């Protein structure tokens, strides 16, 4: 059985006239250890789909089941726990907390899990070593380059051992060389952690490196070669 099942998901937004339909009958599934790229033109609903998968928003209709759980049936509190335990986010903009150090930024999700344990700190250090920031633990985001910030964000996404990592244009703000390094890192870590990775991207280079590719166009998703 698949670890992520998306079944006939639709998303609409109310407007003054007719509702704006962003996603229409989206269905797909994904197993642990697999990765998927979602491509499509601007405004096709890629980020909206990612927000639905990440339980940041809820679908107008259809169901999403991750690791056997449908977050739409959970309370706000339980959705937060669900996100904290099962999902890791990497955004185009890193969204690091400017007041916290690199290590602290990576550990932020552990606060939601009831507090930071020594094992969390060890794992954070390990992750930061693996993303090449072992010597920048105490630096603030403002003291890092764009690539370093994004690598910190990747480490943060993985700190709670998520079953699904969602990356929204993870290389969108990076130069070519840095983008390639970040893509390598994402795939390496996904391979090592054996979780699912879904990335939304405009980058054909990044999409090509993913095991599956799907295209979102006019709200509809289809598998592409």
């Amino acid at each position, binding site marked *: 059985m698949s670890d992520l099942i998306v079944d006939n998901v639709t998303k609409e937004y109310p407007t003054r006239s007719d509702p704006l339909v962003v996603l229409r009958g989206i269905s797909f599934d994904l197993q642990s250890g697999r990765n998927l790229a979602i491509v499509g033109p601007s405004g096709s609903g890629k980020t909206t789909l990612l927000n639905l998968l990440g339980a940041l928003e809820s679908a107008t209709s259809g169901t999403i089941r991750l690791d056997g759980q449908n977050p739409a049936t959970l309370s706000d509190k339980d959705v*937060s726990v669900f996100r*904290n*335990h099962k999902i890791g*986010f990497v955004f185009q903009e890193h*969204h690091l907390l400017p*007041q916290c150090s690199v290590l602290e930024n990576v550990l932020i999700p552990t606060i*939601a899990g009831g507090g930071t344990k020594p094992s969390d700190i060890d794992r954070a250090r390990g992750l930061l070593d693996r993303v090449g920031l072992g010597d920048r633990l105490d630096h603030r985001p403002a003291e890092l380059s764009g690539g370093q910030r994004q690598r910190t964000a990747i480490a943060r996404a993985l700190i709670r051992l998520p079953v699904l990592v969602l990356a929204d244009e993870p290389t969108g703000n990076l130069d070519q060389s840095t983008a390639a390094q970040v893509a390598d890192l994402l795939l390496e870590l996904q391979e090592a952690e054996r979780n699912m990775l879904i990335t939304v991207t405009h980058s054909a280079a990044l999409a090509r490196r993913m095991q599956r590719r799907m295209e979102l166009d006019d709200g509809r998703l289809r598998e592409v070669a």
Partner: protein
Amino acid sequence: MSSLRLVFLSLIHYSRNNLAVGFGVAVATAVLAGALLVGDSMRGSLRSLTLDRLGRIDQALVAEGFFREILCDQLAAAEEFPRTFSESAPAILLSASIESARGEPPLRANRVNLIGCDDRFSQLGPSGPGQLVGGSGITINQALADALEIAGPGQEVLLRLPNAASIPSDSPLGNKEETIRRARLTVSRIIPNEGLGRFGLRASQSVPKNAFVPLGWLQERLEQPGKANAILIAGRDDSASPAEVDALLPGWLRPAAEDLGLSIAVAGEGYFNITSQRMMIDAAAEQELLRAVGDRPVQPALTYLANAIALEKREIPYSTVTAIDFAPNRPFGPFLDPSGQPVAPLGQGEIALNAWAAEDLGAKPGDTIRLRYFEPESPDGQVRETSAEFRLAAIVKLEGAAADPHFTPEVRGVTDVPSIGEWDAPFPFDARKIRKKDEAYWDEHRATPKAFVSLATGRRLWSSRFGRTTNLRVEPRGGETVEAFAGRLDPDPAAFGLRFQPVKRMGLAAAAGTTPFNVLFLAFSFFVIAAALMLVVLLFRLGIEQRAESIGILRAVGLDRGRIIRLLAAEGLAVAALAAAAGVGLGLGYAALMLAGLKTWWLAAVVTPFLQLHASAASLAIGYGCGLAVCFGTIFWTLWRARRTSASRLLGGEFADQYVQPGRQAAWTRWLPPALVAAAVAIGLSARSLSEDARAGAFFAAGAAVLAAGLLWVRRRLRHQATGPAVAAGRGGLLRLALRGAARNPARSTLSIGLIASTSFLIVATSAFHLDLTRLAPRLDSGNGGFALVAESDQPILHDPNTGDGRFALAFSEADSRLLQSTRSFGLRVKSGDDASCLNLYQPLEPRMLGVPEDFRRRGGFAWTASAARTPEEKANPWLLLEKPAEPDADGTPCVPVVLDNNTAMYALHLYGGVGETYDITDDRGRTIRLRIVGLLKNSIFQGDLILAEERLLEHFPLVSGRRFFLIECDPQKAGDVAAAWNRTLGDFGLGTETTGERLASFSAVQNTYLSAFQSLGALGLLLGTFGLAAVQLRNVLERRRELALLRAAGFRRAALGWMVLMENALLLAAGLACGLLAAALAVLPHLLAGAAAAPIRSLAAMLLVILLVGLLASLLAVRATLRAPLVAALRGE
């Protein structure tokens, strides 16, 4: 990593924003704590004044009459005395007037506390008069020196003080002419207005005018050697003694009969004769004496002066008649007829003559005997003769019980002179009528009564408010001496007016004050607090909006809403806790500023600059707690409102209400504004027929309706984005863009305009309630009741200035008398008491009472807030309600009808129930009298007084004689001349006049000053609010940074964008002020045109101009943010 660390890091990282939020919290806390400290300072200062003016004086006894000063020594000699008290001092306390000998007309100070004392007085506290020099020296305090413009010792003054008369002036035997004594003295020392220098037993923050003379000198002047009328007792320290000790002093007080104004002697057939120095034994004293006498047989008698005992044309002049029920046995009888048989008690309408009188008249039983006598009360100095006829029932032999001169109490100048011809009679006395045989009778029998009537008949004819008995005849127990009887007779001294009062405890209780200044200043500071809280909301929200992305990531990584709210709340709490602590410190400064205001700009509210800063730990803690709670509550509310914003929008840096789509609006928004305007017009038109206050209220309501209409109209326009095209041909493009920018967020803009408009409306429209009553012409249905002048005197005036005889008796000159013929005055009885007007900040414990005479009640007039009137007559003239009988309360206590000013009822006595509410007072004997409000006057000259029918006042306070409060009807053009005539002639009585306008203005000055304080602090709040407006603008700029960057990318210069942002802010500010001022003008203008209001237009205009300028300056913050925004980063959304 922990939540606490995250909070700590955020506090540091966002310190600038937190400082701004903290500023708002500190201001709100400072104002809250400051207002509480103003209350503390008021209470503390009143308390300090009480302790200062009383020194160590803890208890005081002030009697109506004089007693031996040795009583004071006897008290101090009590074995237990030193355990609780330290010193005692006798004194004579009088109200006097003092005139400076220099100047023309001479300066006169009325209501001077004349204190006759010796060295013992100065032991009672600091800064006393010290050793007083005998002779012609007088020590005065600085307040009196200032009033008389006396720079130093050596200046002569003329002292006028009341005569110490035993018999009430309102009785026929009372002295009506020589009621004032005068003495020329030299000021020997001026002492400061502190400590005993400002001694006074009445609680008032005003500095009393005190004069100190040696006790011995004053005793001599008053012909009361060795006597005093007050005993002052000092406690062991400055604090007030507990209530338990109140019973101690009365227990140690051992007054002799003469201290109680009594005389006890063996008389007649061996009975003990109790008589009063006042001639009549008053009802309370009689009751107490009867109780004290116990089971001994007692026979009351009433002896009265008959001007004539007549049978047809024959008459005996100036004889005494005794009302008594004949007793058959000794010692009270028997009264024997010529045959030696006891005469039976007389019936109604019967009289008995003694043999001398019967012979003189040639009367025989059955004849009709006419008695001519003066009515027992002589108001306005007029003794009125009346007569009664009796049937001669018996003739009694002039021997035994009937030959008893002790039936007639001692009357100085009458019973103690050798012949009738030498009587120093205070009533019209025709010595020519005295015959030789009368003098012979006097020589042999003195004032032995020549006639007798029954006790019931005598009391019916001659009892009065002064009593119904002149003699209590007590049968001695076997062998009992009069000394032993007097020693055993132990009546309660309180029944004779010898009553200690815990003056310090009462003073400290009164120091709680009438006006809760903490609440008052909290109310005055409402706008400052509101503005500060608005700042907290806006700045805190601005802060979290700037952190929207950070909050979004916290949501994205799994922190639930509750956790995030708790994290941000913890941060807010830390900011609020620290800032509130700073705010408490600032609160001390704010309180000091308010006190400085009360000592200068708002002095009229407290009359005298006595306030000092007092701060209690409780107020500081409450201020801190309230400041923290209110601010944290505000922060939490802000967070709660933002909780629904989705994580995805937060990640995009958005909050829920950032952009509101113009949409369809409810139909009510279209019809309500014109409906409100129509309502305002209707209210305005109907207000023409309303009373003054109601009209002000109506115009206020009309203004508020116009304000609401204006704001709804603006809101509708903004929501429709009906602000004109953003781009159009011609100049003014930037203004058009600014206008569109101001309409970008209609809710926020309407709120900003609304806050400014409503605040400026309230500040300006309250001007309608500023009253200028100095210009109010005398009008029957107004607060002045149609009177032009008010006069008050220190000493009672016993003659009626309305009659030619009265004016002659009062020594008005012929010219003044002619002038006064065209005037009419109403003299009111005065029972002295605390000033319960708004001019006294102490809680009045015994308010002054006025007794209004019947002709005043029939005249009617004055403006009424409410009354218990039911009949058309009562509704037309609610004064008639004072004549209604005292109806019993639920517990059966009779309630005496009383009228008082509404302000006094509400603010001084806190009788919030209004008409029907009861209020208990204590009479001179310590008995409770329950008053029931039957009418409330509006903005009247009677503020501070309880008004009863004259008869009721005299019933409960029989010793009140003469009149001391006068209302004068006269042509306002002649008021100056009339006042001068009164002042000139009645200066001896310590009389002073003022116009009713001046009197009302002194009361309304307090209200006007409170309004000014409200307006000033409101303006301060509005000023602070303009910073809030700038914060709103800053939020707008930050939200629109991409748009502004785009404009710059399109070629707009930074300065142009700065101007645009400045104009947006100016438009909101101007729209708010315009709406508020337009509505306020509608509220105030009709009132101003009517001449009743006195709006401080200049100061208001200056305030609003400052607000406009500061508002524009504050908006430069937003302009600065606009100018500093990086172009590329903004375009990229970073």
